């Protein structure tokens, strides 16, 4: 294998990992706000919740398209394998995102009879989140393959473990959503978000702990990696830093004035969880089935895409930051273009 064919898949795996992480965080707090909709019944407060994300959701969601498109472009075999192996949760996620996405615009036009689109927004977010967790769980527990193609059954993904991953992600996105609200709102709504954030944080920590034990228990390959000496010592900072991030998050939630801290800490928690996943699964792209090299597209394809990506990605990040900067500060009642 020449150097290019060795290095390019690694670079692409890193780019995709960054893209998926950005998606999880950016659309994660958006979906989290949808989950919160279930618990906030006051219409004016719901309007504000929606307006904290309205200028950004579309750009945030595009990282999901980059995830899918990037996987197809850089790792076509993995793309085909994952999409057909996890057909049902992926289709369910897409349909849920249809409801969630159109609700952003339909709700305002439908007023004062917008209840259906409120439901579409919140249930769409809940179902999409759950499906994403199930997809992650399904990937972790492995897909049955033959010659690199999916060779399992329609419902192989349906296990207690994958369902639990779905619930865990709901807790995680709810934490991102509540802490985002603390950051972007004030007064009554912020107080409410602080209370909700505590529950979400405790739920997420419990879920993280359970998944961290359950995964090595059910996948021997992962247990070997974590618990073999001296690996555990080397990896120990990951759980320790997670505990620190959790403490900072709680601290920020309790102390008024530290409005950005809970969100930053929640993002850190997600990043650390992601590092844990990486440790468990390197060098697999589809855990247990395809390594990054086995799944890679032709080097010339990866190189062609890389040129554009290295040029475009900084520009994209630049104007994304610019838009967040433009709409910085607290969101108050009555704002929006509608």
């Amino acid at each position, binding site marked *: 294998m020449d150097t290019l064919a060795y290095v390019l898949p690694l670079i692409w795996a890193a780019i995709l990992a960054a893209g998926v992480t950005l998606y999880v965080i950016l659309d994660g707090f958006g979906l989290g706000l949808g989950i919160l909709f279930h618990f906030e019944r006051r219409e004016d407060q719901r309007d504000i919740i929606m307006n904290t994300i309205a200028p950004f959701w579309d750009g945030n969601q*595009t990282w999901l398209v980059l995830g899918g498109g990037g996987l197809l472009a850089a790792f076509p*075999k993995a793309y085909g394998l994952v999409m057909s192996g996890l057909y049902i949760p992926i289709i369910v996620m897409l349909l849920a995102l249809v409801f969630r996405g*159109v609700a952003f615009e339909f709700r305002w036009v439908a007023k004062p009879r917008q209840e259906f689109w409120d439901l579409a927004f919140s249930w769409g977010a809940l179902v999409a989140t759950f499906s994403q967790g199930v997809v992650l769980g399904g990937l972790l527990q492995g897909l049955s393959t033959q010659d690199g193609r999916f060779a399992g059954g329609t419902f192989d993904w349906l296990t207690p473990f994958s369902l639990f991953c779905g619930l865990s992600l709901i807790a995680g996105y709810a934490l991102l959503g509540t802490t985002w609200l603390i950051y972007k709102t004030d007064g009554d709504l912020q107080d409410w978000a602080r209370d909700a954030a505590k529950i979400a944080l405790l739920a997420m920590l419990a879920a993280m702990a359970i998944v961290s034990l359950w995964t090595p228990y059910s996948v021997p390959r992962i247990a070997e990696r974590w618990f073999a000496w001296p690996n555990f010592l080397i990896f120990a900072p990951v759980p320790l830093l997670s505990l620190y991030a959790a403490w900072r998050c709680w601290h920020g939630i309790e102390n008024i004035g530290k409005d950005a801290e809970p969100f930053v800490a929640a993002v850190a928690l997600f990043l650390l969880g992601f590092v844990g996943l990486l440790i468990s699964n390197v060098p697999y792209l589809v855990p247990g089935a395809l390594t990054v090299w086995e799944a890679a597209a032709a080097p010339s394809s990866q190189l062609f895409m890389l040129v554009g990506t290295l040029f475009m990605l900084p520009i994209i990040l630049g104007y994304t930051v610019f838009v967040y900067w433009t709409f910085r500060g607290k969101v108050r009642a009555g704002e929006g273009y*509608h």
Partner: protein
Amino acid sequence: MDVDAIMLARIQFAFTVTFHIIFPSFSIGLAAFIATLLVRWRITGEDHFHRLARFWTKIFAVSFAMGVVSGIVLSYQFGTNWAKFSEVAGNIVGPLLGYEVLTAFFLEATFLGIMLFGWQRVSPNLHVLSAILVAAGTSFSAFWILSANSWMQTPTGFEMKDGVAYPVSWLEIIFNPSFPYRFAHMFTAAYLTTSVVVLSVGARYLVQGRFLEEAKTMIRMGLGMVAILAPLQLLIGDAHGLNTAEHQPVKVAAMEAHWDGNKPGELLLFAWPDAQAETNHFEIGIPHLASLIITHRYDGLFKGLKDFKAEERPPLLPVFFAFRAMVGIGLLLIAIGFVGAFLWWRRKLFETTWYLQPLTYAWPLGFIAIASGWWVTETGRQPYLVNGILKTIDAASPVSFGAVLTSLILFVLIYTSVFSMGILYINRLIEKGPQGKAISPEGDPDPSAGAHPLVAVQSATRSALGGKE
């Protein structure tokens, strides 16, 4: 996946792609229209351009949301339902779609935030620039999608190794032989579609006697575009047809239901092609005209369906009839543009009810033509998914019949209900019409409106929320 599941996957793809194409083709033209309105407002300072831009931006937002969600579905469907297509063609199609995401999706999705919510937040120039960037994003998107699709129609610049396509020349892949024609044809169709909608809405207001200044602007701008673009589209379509005759002769034979390549083709106005009997029933046609159109010679010969094996021919009926629907609408639009231009020249445009009244129902014409055009080009490529390389039947994912059937039912139910609601809401916005106060070119709210900025926004918000003015 067995044969029946493949049939369902094909129906699912055809269904989701037909629904999807409506929204981006509208967005491409509408984004450019809104940007034009804002630029004209910056130059002239006339309020009604600004009111119109705000009005159409609301409609754009609703349409764009539907385009985004239906587009995400498509970007995943290549894997869920067509996994072997991603394996065989992923090296080529993947990067093209990847470039679409990088150069187009992020641009339009990000600046949409400023376009929708930036009216008071950013300077007018930056706001206009955002609208231009959104329009540019939609155009770049069309560029890459059409490139990928054209490559599937006329693949070049690659080599096959072990059943997988590998890129050899990216320039040849991107600018494959049918790409320039397809891109020009689709791009013009998108602008034409939006222009018809704008013209139709303008006519509706004028007939109702509402928003007269805005209505006249919309009619002038919409009609001007139709009058120029509809005849231009005829020329582009003709060039595209010549290109198809050269590279995909069996598709042209199916479009014309032309069986015998040894005889000059007659242009069939109506016929019922019979694939089993290899002939047409109830033919009404004009002798030699098809030869004249396709070869530009009176006695020109072009290949007939019998020159190809039966299993290499596309399904005839959808190709034949969808092509006639597309061309028929194209000719109707030329007539609308010609008559309108004549009335405009005689200064009777805004008084001629017999012309304006029917136009109020004309808004779907472009959408129908575009959907028909896609059916012609996509069905006409069958039985291949990538022409000459990969048959559709060999491209499917290993997914069970039940799973595809369930997802198909869900797609049909959800798409028809959600998107018909969306179209209903767009109609509600149009019924309400341009509202609210304009902003003066300096970026401050119009002093004549006499309102504090925040009050102006709030009153605009309230009215948009369904309150009384």
